[in-house]
């Protein structure tokens, strides 16, 4: 059951205020993924779980890095179900978890950060992991 939107809004804003594009529908996701050349990243945002509280600020920190994906978007697990389902279709071989982060190069999944790699880690550690991947991929 989705949470009241007023409760979720600050969690959406935490990423969108950092320039992350929010994808609210399956069509939004398909349009985002259709633009294949270059690098892109989808963050599966989440209300529940120990990990989301660190993931959002971790992503924000990582986005200050010089190298980063050219296109960055987010879907919200448990809230925008259709968009999340569609996004997960682009990394269907990976067991679903939220929060999680998928990084693509030319439309191909090249790196995935599952929830358990975020749990218990601080924003700085999460950002460090991400920027390391950005340096390799972007």
């Amino acid at each position, binding site marked *: 059951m989705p949470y009241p939107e007023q409760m979720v809004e600050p969690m959406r804003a935490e990423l969108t205020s950092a320039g992350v594009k929010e994808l609210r529908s399956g069509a939004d996701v398909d349009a985002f993924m259709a633009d294949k050349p270059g690098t892109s990243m989808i963050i599966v945002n989440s209300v529940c779980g120990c990990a989301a509280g660190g993931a959002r600020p971790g992503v924000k920190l990582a986005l200050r890095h010089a190298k980063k994906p050219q296109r960055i978007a987010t879907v919200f697990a448990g809230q925008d179900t259709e968009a999340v389902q569609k996004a997960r279709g682009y990394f269907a*071989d990976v067991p679903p978890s939220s929060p999680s982060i998928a990084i693509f190069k030319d439309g191909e999944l090249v790196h995935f950060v599952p929830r*358990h790699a975020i749990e218990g880690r601080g924003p700085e550690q999460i950002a460090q992991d991400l920027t390391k991947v950005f340096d390799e991929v972007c």
Partner: protein
Amino acid sequence: MGTFHNDKSELHGITVVVDTKGAKVFVGRCDDMDDASVILLDADEHEDGKGGKSKQQYVERAAKFGVWKKHERLVIPRAEVASVHRLGEVFQAVHGGTVANAVQPAAKVIAEPKPAAPPVTKDANTIVTLTPNAQVEVKRLLGDEKPGAGLRLSVKGGGCSGLVYKLEFDAKKDGDVEIPYAGFSLFMDKKSTIYLRGITLDHQKGLQGKGFVFHNPNASNTCGCGESFSV
């Protein structure tokens, strides 16, 4: 202000590897853990050697990609448990080049059983109950505040489980629900009472104490960060 929901074990909400003394190993999100059992949500299991994969190989793969859930909820008797590890630790070890041995015969468990909730007699109609320890501490802290100030308890959106408790000293506002205690009043806005009904606020002192602690029987999900919950 401390850990707000210690009604679950410290691994609550964390994805863990539960190795057993037998052939099975489980991976799932820890819901709770006490002397009797380890409870996992969205869990997968593997039997040593099945599909040509040892327990260790299975755990290493799980650490890289996660697991597909076979069980919504799984209760593993503590007597069968050899060890409990965070899957994230194995993930870090795999990515750091050294794979942690999360499958081991030793009866090592990395988290302690949850502490017992404080004994409190409640009126069924009470929205929030403050234990005697909490009342003493509130009065002590209020000593420095302006006359008329009380304790305001509210719930805001945020944190990693969706909702966070907020405690502050404040004056009564229009529309507040007020619960009088000896020497001070507790104020809550009406919206917050929806989420606060039935909770107990305790205060723990000492080196192992955690300050103000919430026990929320209505929380369907809390998390290990100690600051948020969901209902």
